């Protein structure tokens, strides 16, 4: 969609943002910058499916921090400092997120002039962890390389006995400079870079990217492509949610259940194979439609696999979640309250597990996408069990949606002409909001006067949700941390970009 563009004065920004966030259907999308000389704020209205794009000029790379009044801005303000050198004055926990001691001081990659001297640098590149003091308080450092097969990140636990008092998460190990790379490559190749941001959600990223470019060029895509894209997105959601259930079962020690889930995950990946020829749906969704049209037999196969999965997953998960050991481990562990989720604007299954009904599929999908009518599963307790239940319910509703789409599909064109996206409109902004398996994913593309991409922002759902993990584990047992971690299903690669 094309957002409504507005200019806001710096001194009225926090007041307007507060006013905007008063009603629950209005949300903050992201806060970022184009080249370090301004702040851009994207505001979402979920009932009207509209967005507003606020631009605020800032002087001398600093401005009074918004975090103290609006805690949900805290991560964005830290990210902006890393990438642009914009300093939010008075930010309560101000440190680097992405670029650490490996990078020379004063280097801000997305600033207009990356090595330009800024006013002052309030934090050193060396990361300072928060110290918890007191008798018998000890620290456990974990990472960046973890024991299992997971992405890198560092966790610093401050514990008293077996209880976690504080968890600080140090990220940035996977910072690969994706947002800068997108501006460097030819526009037809942006989709490959976007998919490499986090490949477990490559279809969501590709879909968000495609919709952003389509809104810049103001084109509508064929109905068959809308349906098949929706199918791809749901298939990816199922695979991701099952991966999380594998992790939960494995961490509790039910290895055989985990093994059975991984067989079911393999079947989900075979849906992707039938659909796109790739287990991770890579290079399937492209601006203007989809890259290949699955034949009739493929659709029949997909429908058959989905129907059998529906019954298998229901059978296994009902046994799994009603198991006494599982209940003991997952209930009342890692709880998050609804008010906290609203305060920090958590998204996706994490938010839905505490009773927030926001699902971007309902409001921001194209008008003739059957995903608009999806039933949103919510829970109230906000603990590990609630998040597992939400994932299970979403797997079921996604499988039903896939079967529904298979019936709706009619032969027809599936892609606009290849020449449609050789050039982009000049001085345009395209925004797309997609419900990825982890939650609300936003892509924002801006073009300059030559039709080149001047800024491309990816707001992964994990940017909102990493805070949820560090709050949820407080006062929980150290041994419950792996379960909490898996239940949030956070992406390191999507966050670090």
């Amino acid at each position, binding site marked *: 969609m094309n957002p409504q563009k507005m200019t806001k004065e710096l001194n009225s920004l926090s007041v307007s943002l507060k006013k905007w966030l008063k009603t629950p259907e209005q949300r903050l999308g992201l806060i970022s910058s184009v080249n370090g000389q301004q702040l851009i704020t994207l505001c979402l209205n979920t009932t009207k499916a509209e967005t507003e794009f606020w631009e605020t000029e800032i002087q001398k790379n600093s401005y009074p921090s918004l975090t103290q009044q609006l805690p949900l801005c805290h991560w964005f303000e830290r990210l902006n400092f890393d990438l642009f050198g914009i300093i939010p004055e008075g930010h309560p926990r101000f440190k680097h997120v992405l670029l650490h001691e490996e990078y020379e001081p004063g280097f801000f990659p997305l600033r207009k002039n990356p090595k330009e001297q800024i006013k002052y640098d309030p934090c050193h590149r060396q990361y300072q962890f928060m110290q918890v003091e007191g008798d018998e308080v000890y620290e456990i450092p974990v990472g960046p390389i973890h024991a299992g097969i997971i992405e890198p990140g560092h966790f610093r636990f401050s514990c008293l006995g077996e209880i976690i008092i504080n968890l600080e998460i140090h990220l940035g190990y996977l910072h690969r*400079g994706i947002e800068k790379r997108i501006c460097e*490559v030819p526009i037809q190749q942006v989709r*490959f870079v976007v998919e*490499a941001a986090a*490949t477990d959600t490559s279809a969501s990223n590709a879909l968000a990217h495609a919709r952003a470019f389509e809104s810049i060029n103001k084109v509508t895509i064929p109905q068959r492509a809308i349906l098949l894209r929706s199918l791809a997105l749901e298939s990816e959601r199922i695979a991701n949610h099952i991966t999380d259930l594998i992790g939960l079962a494995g961490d509790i020690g039910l290895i055989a259940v985990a093994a*059975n889930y991984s*067989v079911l995950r393999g079947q989900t990946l075979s849906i992707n194979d039938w659909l796109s020829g790739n287990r991770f749906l890579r290079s399937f969704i492209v601006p203007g439609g989809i890259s290949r049209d699955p034949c009739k037999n493929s659709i029949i196969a997909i429908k058959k696999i989905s129907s059998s999965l529906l019954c298998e997953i229901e059978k296994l998960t009902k*046994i*799994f979640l009603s198991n006494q050991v599982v209940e003991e481990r997952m209930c009342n562990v890692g709880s998050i309250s609804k008010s906290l989720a609203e305060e920090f604007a958590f998204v996706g299954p994490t938010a839905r597990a505490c009773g927030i009904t926001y699902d971007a599929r309902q409001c921001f999908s194209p008008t003739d996408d059957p995903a608009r009518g999806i039933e949103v599963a919510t829970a109230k307790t906000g603990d590990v069990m609630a998040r597992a239940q939400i994932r299970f319910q979403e797997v079921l509703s996604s499988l039903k949606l896939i079967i529904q789409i298979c019936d709706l599909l009619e032969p027809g064109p599936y892609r606009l002409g290849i020449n449609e996206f050789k050039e982009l409109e000049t001085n345009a902004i395209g925004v797309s909001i997609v419900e990825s398996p982890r939650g609300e994913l936003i892509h924002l593309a801006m073009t300059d006067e030559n039709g080149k991409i001047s800024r491309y922002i990816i707001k992964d759902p994990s940017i909102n949700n990493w805070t949820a993990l560090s709050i949820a584990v407080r006062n929980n047992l150290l041994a419950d941390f792996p379960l909490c971690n898996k239940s949030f299903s956070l992406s390191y690669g999507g966050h670090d970009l």
Partner: protein
Amino acid sequence: MIKLLQYLISQGQRTEKNLFPDLPKTCNGQPYLTSNNCKDINCKLCEELCPTAAIQITKMKEENAISLDLGSCITCAECINICSSGTIMPNRSTKTAREERNKLILSNKNLPDTTDYHSQNNSLFQNDLEKNHKKLGKYQAHSIACRVVSTGCSACDLEIAAAGNPIFDMERFGISIVASPRFADVLLVTGPVPKAMHEPLLRCYEAMPEPRKVIAVGTCATSGGVHKNGYTEANGASNILPIDVFIPGCPPHPWSVIHGILTAFNRV
């Protein structure tokens, strides 16, 4: 609990009996070069479309010499779809690992070197493998402990994890994933190794006892893929560590991962 046990027993055995099968026909697989010459020697569509500059065309007298670097290829299949002369075709073999970097660079002028890539010619080899599976001796000479260091987008990690699931079951070859470099024989590196991971990766390698091997899993670890030459110096693992085996693919199939690990110990 009894319900759970009943369910588990009812599931039976799911392990794939056929070792290293070709990917199904619906899959894109990796590209390979055939002896067919380009129909139009001025057609450079594949070179233009390639997002990682893996294809390079040099004009010779009346035909084109094409080189295709599988170590840079992100298997987007654009070149396969656009090629009208059958010069670039899909290769659905899962036996893709190579011990030397330059063996990943295919050329249409030097075909004997690359024939073992062509899945069609693999049927004889396939029968051998099946016979071997009955004995399993060749694969189970001794166990292999692997340590995984992930530095990328998590696709390769998911495929390595999938190689341990009941379908592929890498433990039947004696391969296990271990939680510490101290008792690992092999280091599996995934991802392009951005600047912040240089030191942790090196320290993990140094903590391993000798003899030790390093396997670069996936295109990013081999060459940096779409990330190379950026400000984060994410140019793959080969600039940091000596690599014994390269597994191309973005991400490689679980069978390819197992094949790569066995290749490192000359067991295929």
